[in-house]
């Protein structure tokens, strides 16, 4: 959180995250370059430039696969949340690795004729009507353009200026980019490769991404259990101290009902920063803390503590027969909603 924009909000965790990421990338590329030549088909030796473009291309594919696994992994198991914390830097580095792959391709396959390399790239193969021999390069270009847009709009300013729904919609294009990358690899490299190891690795990566998304999808709450003005949540003691119970609401939104000691309050489950799941976070020093990037909101009014200005909607709560009930209609962001006192519950 910051009350004024700065280029990058570095801290020790981000340095560590980025350091590990860069070291892992460099190690992968070095190992690929070292082992790639012997692993290639010996009857058709591979040039150094081709080896380098494959090293960066496959690295970008695996990085993109990991990025897409982080979201569902964090939903399935809280221990993966630290991976999510700096995922945007992961995305920017992936875009740069993919760009390096593209530069190697342009400077090798399209650099030795009088035709402009970009024109040659787009015009050399226009057989869009067939599957085998499909111009898979175009799929790579589409994916690279999407990754470039996502990387270029990853700063918090864009999130605030475009608004979370639009920013999030824009960044959902990562799924399209991944589909294009998979098709790019499937119709390109995998059509020619004589080495089954990479076909297996690509397949396993895509299956891991698919399987984890399916598992997270199955775990997500489906529909609201009630209607009308109030719906039942749980008995106060059923909510762990400092944690929340997430409820799908009749209007399609989600509410998070938190317990902080003897206080119980309810906020929108969507963080105002990046729509992170507030209900999967904790109450720290009286503030609900988003598990994704640590944005905080007061339980009593959904406002971030000064000097920060973020707000989320609150929900009114009441107790009926020892059960917490939540109003189905949210209050405007930042509206005070007095938390229930658990001690009250014993007397109702």
């Amino acid at each position: 959180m910051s009350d004024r924009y700065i280029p990058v909000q570095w801290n020790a965790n981000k340095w560590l995250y980025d350091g590990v990421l860069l070291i892992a990338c460099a190690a992968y590329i070095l190992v690929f370059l070292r082992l790639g030549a012997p692993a290639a088909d010996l009857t058709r030796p591979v040039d150094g430039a081709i080896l380098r473009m494959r090293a960066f291309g496959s690295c970008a594919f695996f990085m993109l696969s990991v990025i897409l696994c982080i979201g569902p992994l964090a939903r399935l198991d809280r221990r993966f949340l630290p991976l999510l914390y700096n995922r945007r830097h992961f995305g920017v580095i992936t875009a740069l690795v993919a760009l390096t792959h593209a530069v190697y391709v342009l400077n090798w396959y399209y650099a030795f004729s009088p035709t402009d390399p970009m024109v040659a790239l787009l015009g050399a193969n226009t057989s869009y009507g067939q599957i085998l021999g499909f111009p898979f390069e175009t799929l790579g270009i589409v994916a690279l353009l999407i990754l470039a847009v996502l990387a270029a709009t990853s700063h918090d300013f864009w999130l605030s200026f475009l608004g979370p729904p639009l920013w999030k919609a824009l960044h959902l294009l990562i799924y399209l980019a991944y589909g294009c990358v998979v098709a790019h690899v499937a119709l390109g490299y995998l059509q020619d490769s004589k080495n089954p190891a990479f076909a297996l690795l690509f397949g396993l990566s895509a299956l891991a991404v698919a399987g984890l998304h399916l598992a997270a999808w199955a775990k997500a709450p489906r529909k609201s259990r009630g209607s009308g003005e109030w719906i039942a949540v749980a008995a106060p003691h059923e909510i762990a101290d400092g944690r929340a119970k997430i409820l799908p609401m009749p209007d399609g939104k989600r509410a998070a009902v938190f317990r902080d000691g003897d206080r119980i309050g309810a906020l929108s489950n969507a963080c105002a920063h990046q729509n992170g799941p507030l209900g999967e976070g904790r109450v720290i020093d009286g503030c609900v803390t988003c598990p994704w990037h640590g944005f905080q909101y007061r339980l009593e009014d959904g406002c971030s503590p000064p000097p920060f200005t973020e707000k989320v909607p609150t929900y009114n709560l009441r107790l009926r027969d020892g059960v917490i009930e939540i109003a189905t209609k949210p209050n405007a962001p930042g509206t005070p909603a007095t938390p229930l006192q658990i001690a009250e519950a014993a007397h109702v």
Partner: protein
Amino acid sequence: METAERLLAIGQGYLWIGLVVAAVFLAWGIDRVEAKAQGAWIFRPLLLPGAVLIWPLVLWRWLRVERGNACPQAPYRPPLTAQRLFSMIVIFACPAILMGALLLRQDGPLERPAVQLAAPQEGQAHE
């Protein structure tokens, strides 16, 4: 090749317009639409690539904020509905594409004899 040249010219035109929009927005407009950006200059060069790439969105949002049409409730709409739809791409389409492409390989599991493709006609070669 003509189509490729035309596409590239359109792309270059788009980026040039983007550069102009980005320069005006980052030098002047950003202070009008974002309180946290006022007086903060060092981070602006970092926004340049984004502003160039998505300049139509920048203009649209800028106009909305200037006219006071920005919806205060918009940030709290649930984001997950579309995400589920998009995740279908990775759940179903990606494995299907990979498996399909491997099956279609000329020396793959469904081995088929190699086909000699016809040489392109004179006219087609320059398209």
